[in-house]
């Protein structure tokens, strides 16, 4: 056989004549991406992601179909090549419609594999569901009760009727497994012998400790309070989150080996320097525990409380005394929680004073509704301007009416006081719940931001000190619990990398393609689904619940869960972990929106019993067409049209079920993306086991 010699990335190679550059490179273990190349088929040269440089040629050439020639000098990786490959991928992405992951999953700050666990619940596998949830988020019983569920806002089921009750479903999974008596204790990596100090036993700290243990490290968790849970315990009333639920999930973390030291305050009982000396790494999850002042006259008057202070006190003592008339100032969940708690503690008249309208209230709509049902009065477009101790012994609050002006930086319309609308209100207590600040004053040496939060990388959790990591509210400012849980997990991955002496890159970020927000999505995705109403969460009657702190929401029945879970549309791509488009998009840091243009029309053919053809995902590599022509001899699929409208279609544009189906599995197998996919493939983005993430590498 005739042989030729050529240079590949500076190395002299002798190969058989007729060998393509791609084949020669692969034999040498050199990575060259390709979509359209398939060893079984003749070279096609259509995707052009496999381009390489040949000395003396102006253009880049496709390595899959260019044969190595005597004396040729080939380069397979350069700035220019990477740019071309990235452009190729970005062009394909601009003409590719679909979601890699369900929008619920990508909206969830913790990235829980929601379609995956919901499917398990639909099939009755509660434990499998819980394992998958805990892969990303170790507190489902807690969050299943209090999460503000951003995921449900993006649920595609909204295009049919209402979102899936995702939050309450994951509560069910957690409750069911606990009720079985055998908690799920995940497998740990072999011990590293390293010790990590975690400051703060709130959602961030608990999450960091949980995952650090899974990664083989030992944690000691310090907290200034007497019990674990942080804001979930001291900022959320027990009628929403019973305390034993917190204990249950903390117990798992203890079981994994974490040691807890309560009543230990940073800066008083321990110092950061000491922790750094005694431990191999430190994670700070301090939270945002400082009540934001109203900055009005008379704020210090007796009887004026902070929302967070009041909730903390009532959490420790459920027989706390409160006045008859209570005015809560603020519009967030803390304000609503404070108002409902005041009712339970015996207040007769509770009002919430908010300076904008109900529509602008940041509190969760269901909570506001529940508060109203319980008798809390909403007093909107009003704000306090001064508080005086009246001669009658009550608080005299001067209020002013507001109106809405132009939108401010947050996009909400700015409230403007109405001149001359001042008026007096007489109450027993004022509870100021207008937000919390971070108190990081005891972190000497750590760089803070101008908002006095810890200046840490939001993704990796790294700070200006190598050994110290931080996450949760103390970094982001007051935010929802699930965001803190996510920050704890991501920091755990970074800390693990740090402890192993690796470069701290944090959790790998995989490319995710999206069809867009719920408002932008092609409504055709909702076609073919019958309307099934969302399961309603059973609640205690109002009369009963305001008499005490019993949990208001009593949980779904099993039957309701199975039916609710079955409503899931299983968004996200079944090929997500095998898809080469996603893998290369990750590799080349591609941006879906770099080349923005007219989107492909959503076009699903699910006529076939076993296989779905999503034409909107097809990238025209032609593997299926050539396979069916060259090997199967069926001509079941072919190219149609031309230019940007060219499409791979079943013969004559028929439904897939009506063409020769011989060897259709081979077509599915050779589709580099999820355009042709088996129906019985699960939507399963993640493995349940939490492991040290390997850096992504295509193929």
């Amino acid at each position, binding site marked *: 056989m005739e042989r030729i010699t050529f240079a590949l990335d500076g190395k002299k190679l002798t190969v058989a004549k007729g060998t393509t550059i791609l084949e020669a490179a692969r034999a040498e273990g050199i990575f060259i991406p390709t979509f359209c190349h398939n060893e079984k088929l003749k*070279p096609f*040269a*259509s*995707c*052009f*992601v496999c*381009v390489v440089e040949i000395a003396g040629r*102006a*253009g*880049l050439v*496709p390595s899959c*179909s*260019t*044969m190595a020639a005597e004396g040729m000098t080939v380069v397979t990786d350069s700035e220019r090549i990477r*740019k*071309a490959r990235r*452009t*190729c991928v970005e*062009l*394909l992405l*601009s*003409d590719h419609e679909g979601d890699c992951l369900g929008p619920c999953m990508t909206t969830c700050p913790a990235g829980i594999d929601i379609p995956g666990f919901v499917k398990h619940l639909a099939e009755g596998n509660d434990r499998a569901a819980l394992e998958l949830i805990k892969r990303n988020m170790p507190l489902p019983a807690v969050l299943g009760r209090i999460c503000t569920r951003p995921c449900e806002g993006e649920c595609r089921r909204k295009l049919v009727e209402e979102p899936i009750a995702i939050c309450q479903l994951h509560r069910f999974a957690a409750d069911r497994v606990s009720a079985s008596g055998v908690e799920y204790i995940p497998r740990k990596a072999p011990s590293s012998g390293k010790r990590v100090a975690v400051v703060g036993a709130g959602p961030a700290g608990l999450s960091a400790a949980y995952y650090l243990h899974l990664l083989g490290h030992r944690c000691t968790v310090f907290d200034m309070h007497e019990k674990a849970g942080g804001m979930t315990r001291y900022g959320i009333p027990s009628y929403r989150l019973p305390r034993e639920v917190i204990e249950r999930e903390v117990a798992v973390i203890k079981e994994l080996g974490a040691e807890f030291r309560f009543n230990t305050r940073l800066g008083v009982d321990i110092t950061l320097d000491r922790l750094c000396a005694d431990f191999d790494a430190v994670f700070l999850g301090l939270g945002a525990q400082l009540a934001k002042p109203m900055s009005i006259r008379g704020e210090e008057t007796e009887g004026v409380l902070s929302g967070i202070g009041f909730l903390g006190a009532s959490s420790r003592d459920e027989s706390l005394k409160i006045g008859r008339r209570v005015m809560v100032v603020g519009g967030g969940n803390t304000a609503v929680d404070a108002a409902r708690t005041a009712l339970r503690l015996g207040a007769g008249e509770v009002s919430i004073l908010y300076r904008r309208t109900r529509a602008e209230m940041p509190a969760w709509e269901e909570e506001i509704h529940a508060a109203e049902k319980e008798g809390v009065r909403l007093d909107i477009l009003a704000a306090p301007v001064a508080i005086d101790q009246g001669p009658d012994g009550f608080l005299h609050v001067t209020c002013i009416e507001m109106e809405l002006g132009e939108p401010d930086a947050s996009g909400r319309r700015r409230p403007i006081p109405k001149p001359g609308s001042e008026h007096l209100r007489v109450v027993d207590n004022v509870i100021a719940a207008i937000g919390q600040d971070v108190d990081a004053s005891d972190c000497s040496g750590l760089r803070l931001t101008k908002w006095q939060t810890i200046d840490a990388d939001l993704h990796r959790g790294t700070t200006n000190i190598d050994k110290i990591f931080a996450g949760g509210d103390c970094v982001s400012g007051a935010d929802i619990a699930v965001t803190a849980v996510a920050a704890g997990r991501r920091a755990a991955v970074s800390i693990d990398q740090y402890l192993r002496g690796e470069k701290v890159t944090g959790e790998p970020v995989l490319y995710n393609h999206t069809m867009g927000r719920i408002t932008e999505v092609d409504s055709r995705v909702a076609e073919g689904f019958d309307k099934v109403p969302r399961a309603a969460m059973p609640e205690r009657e109002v009369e009963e619940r305001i008499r005490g702190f019993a949990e208001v929401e009593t949980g779904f029945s099993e039957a309701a869960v199975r039916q609710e879970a079955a409503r899931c549309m299983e968004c996200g791509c079944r090929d997500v972990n095998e898809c080469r488009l996603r893998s290369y998009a990750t590799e080349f840091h591609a941006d879906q929106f770099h*080349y923005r*243009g*007219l989107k492909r029309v959503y076009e699903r053919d699910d006529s076939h019993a076993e296989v779905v053809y999503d034409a909107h995902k097809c*990238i*025209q590599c*032609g593997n299926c067409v050539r396979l069916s022509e060259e090997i199967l001899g069926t001509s079941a699929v072919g*190219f149609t*049209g*031309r*230019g*940007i*409208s*060219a499409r791979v279609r079943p013969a004559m544009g028929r439904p897939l079920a009506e063409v020769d189906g011989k060897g259709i599995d081979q077509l599915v197998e050779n589709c580099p993306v999820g355009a042709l996919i088996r129906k019985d493939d699960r939507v399963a983005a993640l493995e349940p086991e939490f492991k040290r993430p390997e850096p992504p590498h295509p193929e």
Partner: protein
Amino acid sequence: MSEMRKTIVVGMSSCNIAAGAEKVYGIIREKMADGLDVNLSITGCLGLCFCEPQVRVIDEDGSEHLYVDVTPERITGIIDEHLKGGRPIAAWASDLNQGAMVKLLGKQRRIVLANCGRINPERIDDYLAQGGYQALERVLRENRPAAVIDEVLASGLRGRGGGGFSTGLKWRFAYNNKADKKFVICNADEGDPGAFMDRTVLESDPHAVLEGMAIGAFATGADEAYIYCRAEYPLAVKRLDLAIAQARERGLLGKSILGTPFSFDIHVKEGAGAFVCGEETALMASIEGRRGMPRIRPPFPAEAGLLGKPTTINNVETWANIPWIIRHGAADFAAQGTEKSKGSKVFALAGKIKRGGLVEVPMGITLDEIIHDIGGGTGSKRQVKAVQMGGPSGGCVPRQLFDTRIDYDEVVKTGAIMGSGGMVVMDETTCMVDVARYFLNFTQLESCGKCTFCRIGTTRMLEILTRICHGRGKPEDIPMLEDLADQIKHTSLCGLGQTAPNPVLTTLRYFRDEYEEHIHEKRCRAGKCRDLCSFEITDRCVGCTLCARNCPVNCIAGASKELHVIDQNRCIRCGVCRDVCPFDAVAVR
């Protein structure tokens, strides 16, 4: 043919017919039926398309009179006065030895077009009378294929389809590849909008192409050929079919041509509407009955072409040069032109040009000579702004570069390409962003859809250009266009993709200020992009009412001899008022 009769020859090419030649022909036939005693014949296109239909009258003494712009009224006059009365009508005739005609014809060098508009393309005897098929006869008699290739190589002939590859070398590759079967193909898929050289040659002198192909087949060892002709050229197909039939009848095609062992036959394959089939691998796929999707080269067609056999593909004009080169010798051919571009080149002049049509000029002539001396400039008060060369693969050469010589390599330096010969002249009313958008629209529609960069990249470029033309352009659009253009150019499989960005790149190079005006000032100075311009009637208006009468939406008010006013709310910014105004009183705002 009776010596005692006058002969009248009617130009019957597609362009003549579109201009009304059939009607003229019909009137002559009617008069002959009524006893008019003349010889009636037809011919193809003389290239003077700007003054068609044309009729040539040859008197009994052989003197010729070329009548131009022949309307039905004029032909009746010509019949009465000239044919019957013997009194030529000088006012309607074009004197080829006078003024503009001298400029027009004097600078030309007709090799390919020599017979066009002179002979009857439907009669082989006319071609034979001009020395036709003598070249074929000679090479068959001498029977030295390699010598034929040497001759073609020595002539310096380069592919006239645009690529400019040496024809002789191409033949030699095919010759060197031994095979049981070889093909030659004539690429007559003249897809460039604005080009009509091949159509004219096929309609006006089909035998020259057939003879060239027969010589090429003999030289390379082929025995079968295809002419792949655009479906939009029905007359060309008809005349080719006729010519092939006549050549077979005379033993010039078929078995044992002219009694030699050489057998050769030609099939005409009609295209079905796909620009990309001008690319040779797509063309072959199309002949094989498949979608016209190009494949990577190598292997080149000379090695593995049609049905896997060695194949020589040249375009119409290239083949039509061959008989001349063989008859007159390589030296005569190579004596004309520049160092690396020999012979002549046919161009199709169109657009904002006074004397549009086909011209054949020696290589080395300047663009200015073609556009101003031969073409006569815009023919209006407006100045030439640029000339678009090479169609969708080419570029816009601005006026300041009109001293560029016609030479493959010189033209490339401007960013355009020699191309197949389309030249569309543009004046101040042409918006260069719109021109770029026009070409990108064309290429993205014609992209076969196989490769990523061409399929999606050209679409994204078009979307950006469309946005700019509609006043929604953003400052980052220009760098985005440049980036995409560069990458598509260097990362595409076939010529369509590799050259598709050229119209954008050249307009960005020479007319960047127009892009910037569109984006930053939301203004189209040419008055073409409707969202970015308005028209106003200035005080130069004399109240002739021409604009008001031509306005398609009747939104111009004004009495005769009074200043006219455009109702801006109803105006659709079509620019008709400006086009018709004889006083240049309509201004773009």
